[in-house]
């Protein structure tokens, strides 16, 4: 695995260029360009506010900003996996003709997503003020949460990238799992109000339940991260190791499988 890290590190310049070109290509052709980094989650938030507040008459006074925190984090994860699952097959021409560490392909999607995520804080910060978020020293946990999410996403994305090359319909399966994950994570609701206490432990085993709850805690509620974050971090590391191990084992076979 250290060999893998080394080979990726040696090609960090490539990774950097892949990320910037991904970001540029993504935004270049649109009239509003980079504004979509804000507009996309904002419009998504508006849709869910319509659903939860107007139709179901739920959600508290801080609901919009809690929702926005959750959507940002979740959006980074889903875009990373959706890119990863086709990252090798969609670049088949390059992969079949140029030698470079293939992990760069899913990784560049993740990093591009991270940039989008951080850019959206430009909107999140005024929202936090507008909805009276409680600020505390717990905000300092933010980099830790982002790193845990990054580690988890890299592991999951490498698995998706390798398996998605062998299995054409993994793309559809991943879309379904992500949809399910959206409802099984505290995005549209809060854990305390919705999840029955006896199920809480099982519910929180989902690393994204702990992650999103923690984001909401530190950014909006001024509280420390969820006590289940330690488990989420452990799951993240395990997924990361499995992802790297599997990807490394399959890497030289992937090109032939395209």
């Amino acid at each position, binding site marked *: 695995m250290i060999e893998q890290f080394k080979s990726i590190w040696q090609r960090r310049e490539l990774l950097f260029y892949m990320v910037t070109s991904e970001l540029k290509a993504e935004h270049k052709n649109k009239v509003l360009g980079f504004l979509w980094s804000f507009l996309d989650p904002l419009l998504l938030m508006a849709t869910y506010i319509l659903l939860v507040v107007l139709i179901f008459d739920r959600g508290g006074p801080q609901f919009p900003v809690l929702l926005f925190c959750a959507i940002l984090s979740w959006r980074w994860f889903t875009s990373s996996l959706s890119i990863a699952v086709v990252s090798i097959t969609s670049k088949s021409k390059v992969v079949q*003709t140029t030698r470079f560490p293939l992990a760069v392909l899913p990784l560049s999607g993740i990093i591009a997503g991270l940039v989008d995520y951080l850019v959206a804080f430009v909107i999140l910060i005024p929202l936090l003020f507008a909805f009276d978020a409680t600020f505390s020293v717990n905000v300092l946990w933010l980099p830790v949460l982002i790193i845990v999410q990054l580690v988890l996403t890299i592991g999951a994305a490498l698995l998706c990238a390798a398996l998605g090359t062998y299995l054409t319909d993994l793309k559809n399966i991943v879309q379904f799992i992500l949809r399910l994950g959206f409802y099984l994570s505290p995005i549209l609701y809060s854990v305390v109000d919705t999840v029955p206490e006896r199920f809480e432990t099982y519910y929180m085993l989902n690393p994204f339940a702990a992650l999103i709850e923690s984001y909401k805690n530190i950014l909006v509620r001024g509280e420390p991260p969820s006590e289940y974050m330690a488990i989420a971090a452990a799951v993240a590391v395990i997924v990361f190791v499995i992802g790297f191990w599997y990807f490394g084992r399959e890497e030289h076979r992937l090109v032939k499988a395209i």
Partner: protein
Amino acid sequence: MEAIRATDLGIRFKVGKRKRTSARNIVVSGFRRRRGGADDFWALRHVSFTVSKGDTIGVIGRNGSGKSTLLRVIGGIYPPDEGEVSVQGSVSTQFSLGAGFETELSGIENIYLNGILMGLSKKYIDSVLDDIIGFADIGEFINMPVKTYSTGMETRLGFAIAIHVHRDIVLIDEILVVGDAEFRKKCDERLDKIMGERTILLVSHDMNAIRRFANKVIWLDKGQIVAQGEPEEVIQRYLGS
């Protein structure tokens, strides 16, 4: 000095097992096909040859005979499933003209992206950027997105980048047939210039190009070497087959 040596080289594609499949296929036929063997397809088999430093090797054969697979093995894309291949020196895989183009980005942005993909450093690309733009000679289009390019322009840009990647062994697949007469002349001159100093493997259906550049020819058919040696001799046998 020896640059490339292949000994009993074999590349196998597993048609039933590892090949891209769908969940439905696995359910329907996966269990029946569990034991590989019958479904294996050998893209190359029992291929042995040596290339000396400075040689220009022409690789000929019908479509699907394993020519591109051979270049990919030498380029390190496919590890051999059987036999061995040893390569002395750095390899440029310039059989990939324009493969890494991001069509939304401009020509210049793609020069950087592709150059770095091929292993150049940004600093080096900075220093040869003007040469690359000059060689491609596509005028104002260099600042426009690659999706607005004609096939010819894409090839010109791809070739212009590729020839600035200096490697000991140069792999070229079918590029001499594209582009207009003037650009072709430019490419030929460039090839003439690097011939002898570098080892070149040239895959082409254009026998005139092979005659002009190669000092040795390998004829592949169905993944096996039918003949190798003197260009004229092998070409005559190939054309007569």
